[in-house]
């Protein structure tokens, strides 16, 4: 694992988008303890932040965690340092999306069935979350 | 020599006259009419009879520097004040009462030794243009003091209105010099009769033998009634054309500074406070009495003429309507007013 040379630019951009600074995190992991979807994460939320603190931005982006984050804000509510992790994850997603071309989700990939079953809202938020 | 100029051309005349030295004339400043050096766009007002503040400041500025001093270590050094040379002055539009007042000031400052240099210098360099009064102000009572509203002795130029013409008659060489300066702006004109002498308010003041009566009544209880309404401001003395008291003060700091004189008023309790705090004129009673007696008794005794010219400025300006007329009536009559 090594720091990507432009990791600081990544983090600056993420900070700007989310208004959250990973440096404030104490690594108390209360977020992870509270997270309802931690089970399906490969990294626990506090670990993602840890990677950012250390500048391992690639790991942070490669991780599933930012993408499975449901933005339920439990972490934000629990965090003793007043950090809003949900925003931070959003920040990571946005930066990541703008960095690597192509969206993580394009309409073509969706089968008509899926389109039928999925509620409008889910689609809208899905595209907002996974596309530029 | 008589010349005249149309009302509408006066602006040009002001510009010309102001070209070689300050031209003082009555200018509207807010609600007040003041004698000010003419400046482009000044609201000159030759209609209103008497200015709020008298033109005395042309010769007796509100403050002027005497000398400078500096101190280094334990030694103190005095230097003459850097006096800006008193250039030619023109005072335009003084009324007969103002002219009489100037004469009174002359008596004090330069008719006899010691002569007050700064005053004398300004006076020497000033051309006086008197303006005859038309409709008098309700406050005017100059005639009571023998002032002729349309004829001002001592003026270098006597001016008066003839419908829309301002007619000027040079009385002295200085006056003629002014005509020369004005040049083509003034039109030749044959003699024109001076305007009628208007009737000013006649307060029927018992001026005959007044000083003598007042002298006897120095301790009269009437003073104790008269002064009460006075609030002790200096408005009357500062608008008055004949009041001429001044104070000497220092400006600066302990290392360097200047000594100057500035208007002062016998109405202020500080006027007579002595080093050590004693004040011979303890209350407003003594101060009010002093002011009126100075005008109506002491000055006549010293100079043989009243130091009031009936301009009515104090009647207009006193915030509580206490004035010289009231004083003369209360204490000057055959008998003292009992109220």
């Amino acid at each position, binding site marked *: 694992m090594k720091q990507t040379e432009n990791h600081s630019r990544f983090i600056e951009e993420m900070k700007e988008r989310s208004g959250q600074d990973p440096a404030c995190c104490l690594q*108390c992991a209360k977020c*992870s303890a509270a997270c309802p979807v931690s089970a399906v994460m490969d990294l626990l939320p506090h670990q993602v932040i840890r990677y950012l603190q250390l500048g391992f931005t690639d790991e942070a982006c490669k991780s599933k965690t930012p993408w499975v984050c449901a933005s339920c804000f439990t972490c934000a509510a629990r965090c003793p340092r007043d950090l809003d992790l949900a925003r931070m994850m959003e920040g990571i997603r946005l930066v990541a999306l703008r960095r690597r071309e192509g969206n993580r989700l394009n309409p073509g990939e969706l089968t008509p069935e899926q389109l039928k079953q999925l509620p409008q809202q889910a689609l809208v938020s899905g595209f907002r979350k996974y596309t530029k | 020599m008589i010349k005249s100029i149309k009302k509408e051309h006066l602006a040009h005349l002001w510009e010309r006259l102001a070209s070689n030295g300050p031209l003082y004339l009555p200018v509207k400043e807010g609600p007040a009419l003041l004698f000010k050096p003419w400046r482009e766009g000044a609201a000159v007002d030759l209609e209103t009879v008497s200015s709020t503040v008298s033109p005395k400041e042309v010769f007796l500025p509100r403050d002027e520097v005497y000398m400078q001093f500096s101190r280094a270590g*334990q030694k103190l050094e005095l230097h003459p004040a850097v006096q800006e040379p008193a250039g030619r002055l023109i005072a335009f539009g003084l009324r007969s009462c103002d002219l009489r007042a100037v004469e009174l000031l002359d008596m004090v400052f330069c008719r006899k030794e010691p002569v007050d240099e700064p005053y004398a210098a300004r006076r020497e360099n000033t051309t006086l243009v008197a303006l005859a009064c038309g409709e008098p102000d309700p406050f005017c009572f100059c005639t009571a003091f023998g002032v002729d509203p349309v004829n001002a002795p001592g003026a270098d130029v006597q001016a008066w209105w003839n419908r829309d013409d301002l007619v000027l008659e040079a009385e002295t060489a200085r006056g003629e010099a002014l005509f020369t300066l004005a040049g083509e702006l003034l039109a030749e004109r044959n003699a024109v009769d001076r305007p009628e002498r208007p009737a000013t308010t006649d307060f029927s003041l018992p001026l005959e033998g007044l000083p003598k009566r007042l002298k006897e009544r120095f301790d009269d209880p009437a003073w104790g009634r008269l002064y009460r309404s006075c609030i002790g401001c200096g408005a009357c003395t500062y608008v008055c054309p004949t009041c001429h008291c001044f104070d000497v003060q220092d400006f600066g700091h302990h*290392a360097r500074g200047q000594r100057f004189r500035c208007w002062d008023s016998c109405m202020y309790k500080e006027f007579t406070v002595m080093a050590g705090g004693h004040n011979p004129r303890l209350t407003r009673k003594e101060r009010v009495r002093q002011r009126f007696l100075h005008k109506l008794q002491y000055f006549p005794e010293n100079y043989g003429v009243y130091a009031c010219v009936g301009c009515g400025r104090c009647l207009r300006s006193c915030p509580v309507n206490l004035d010289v007329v009231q004083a003369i009536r209360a204490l000057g009559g055959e008998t003292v007013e009992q109220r």
Partner: protein
Amino acid sequence: MPRVGVFICWCGTNIAGTVDIETVVETARNFPGVVHTADYRYLCSEIGQDLIKEAIKNEKLEQVVVGTCSPRMHESTFRKAVAEAGLNPFLLEVANLREHCSWVHQDKTEATAKAIALLRAAAAKAVLNAPLIAPRLDVEKRALVIGGGIAGIQAALDIAEAGYPVDVVEREPSIGGRMAQLEKTFPTLDCAACILTPKMVEAAQHPQINLLTYSEVEEVKGFVGQFDVKIRQKARAIDATKCTGCGVCYEKCPTKTESEFEMGLAKRKAIYVPFPQAVPNVPVIDRDNCLYFRKGRCRICEKECPPQAVYFEQQDQILERRYGAIVVATGFDQLNPVEYGEYAYGQHPDVLTSLEFERFFNAAGPTGGKVVRLSDGKPPRNVVFIQCVGSRDKARGMNYCSKICCMFTAKQAILLKEKVPEARSYVFYIDVRTAGKGYEEFQRRAAEQYGVAYLRGQVGKVFPDGDRLTVKGVDSLSGKTIEIQADMVVLAAASVARGDAAQVGRVIGINSDQYHFFNEAHPKLKPVETHTAGIFIAGACQAPKDIPDSVAQASAAAVKAVGLLAKEKLQGEACTARVDQSGCSGCLYCEAVCPYGAISAVQIEEHFRGEKLTRIVAEVNAALCQGCGSCTVACRSGSINLQGYTNAQILAEVDAICL
């Protein structure tokens, strides 16, 4: 013009390095009044001071100006020197050529120019200096200690031992404070009562100590050496002189209510002593719960009391006393974690704060010393301790570390193991902080010998699960989420300032920080002093503290107080306000703004037209005046002036600087 001497200090190269001393001296020579100038390498040195003294004698100087370091540094030094040369010490002015000039500017010409300006201002002020004499103030040789916890008791004992009478004001019916609630103390595990009780008794019996329990301070006026304090002694409804402490009254009392001492985990009577070892051992009738006070009937205690000590008509007493010094030791509270819903505190009987849990170990406690679940009375198998509940919680504006939690948690985990050998403890922590003699060893013992499981992580949720509690947490080191079936959850709730600390601070006249802990005068050099001279602070009212720190600080505060009381007289403020009665119109606006009540109205007589008239003018009590000068601005006529900083002097400084 007085004869002025100007002396410039090089301060080695500190001043001379950036300020051209020669130019400064040359210029100073021509300042008004100056008859003598000199400069020296170290003016504050013996030789430097002699330089000044000699000049005063030889040159007959009447005013002295020194250009040196900050007046806050050496003004007193030079005042002394000037005084030794026979001048009044206040005929000295200091120009700050170091801190305010040479140290903050590099350009030599600029620094020199500024030095000259500052010196000119000082000289301009100096020529207007007048001799001043500081009033000498009496010291009331008695101290007041507010708070009867371990810190208060220690401070009182130390002051008393030094031979000065002390009054201790305690809000509760008994002294003892928080420590009395504890079972054992870390890191030695000796019993709190065993070490506290003797001190309580000692305090009670000490001839110099006067305990005012069940009392509160209502007002503090005056100033160092002479604080006038109003103390309300709440009515116990017991005649303490008769009471023998036999305890019949509370045996017989029919009314029960929650015991504060037991953190509401047990009941007490309406007439009660908070705990068995209470000092004084005199009951109190709690009027909110007493049948007689509520309904007007009962009076059983009165009937039963052998010495007839019950006295329902007793009223609050207001005691007014003067003290020379005050020690504030009002202690702390433990945060009520009810707002942390995720921990289920208040929702489940087996979720406790550590202070509540502490009572479980006490033989006289709610469970008679047995550690059992309140829910079913069974001993716990799994106990989860959660650290930093409220502490380090930026989100709730509590950024600080409560300092003692790591240690008392380790202690409780150990005690638990001793009481319930089969029990297992889990501690969720963010960091373990054990700075202190024997502390780290103690904590390690808990982990290594007592098998306490330390998990670096926080708990996200505690929820009831059958008759147990599920604790959902994380071990951040392994990156694993962890679920524990717990029987009890103990919350290390933050130590917080007393709920009314800010208000109390206002009454006493000391200020507090954003968490309402009282402020020390200087974080390093004046840890027990406050900004108000003569008032000192000790214990957890200043910041979270363990017992040793509180005791140490208490003794420190005591020494400060004793040092003050030992003084024959106190030097008052010399630069005080003064009224020119001739100009004073008696509007007394000055009185309204004076923070010290130093200004009062007096009637003077004067003659007017031969008659005697009386009128009101202001008068300054120089002993009370501290010289802030607020009055001089409230006075429109400038009739009240501040000596040493007169209107004329400040104007002279302004003029000089603007030259």
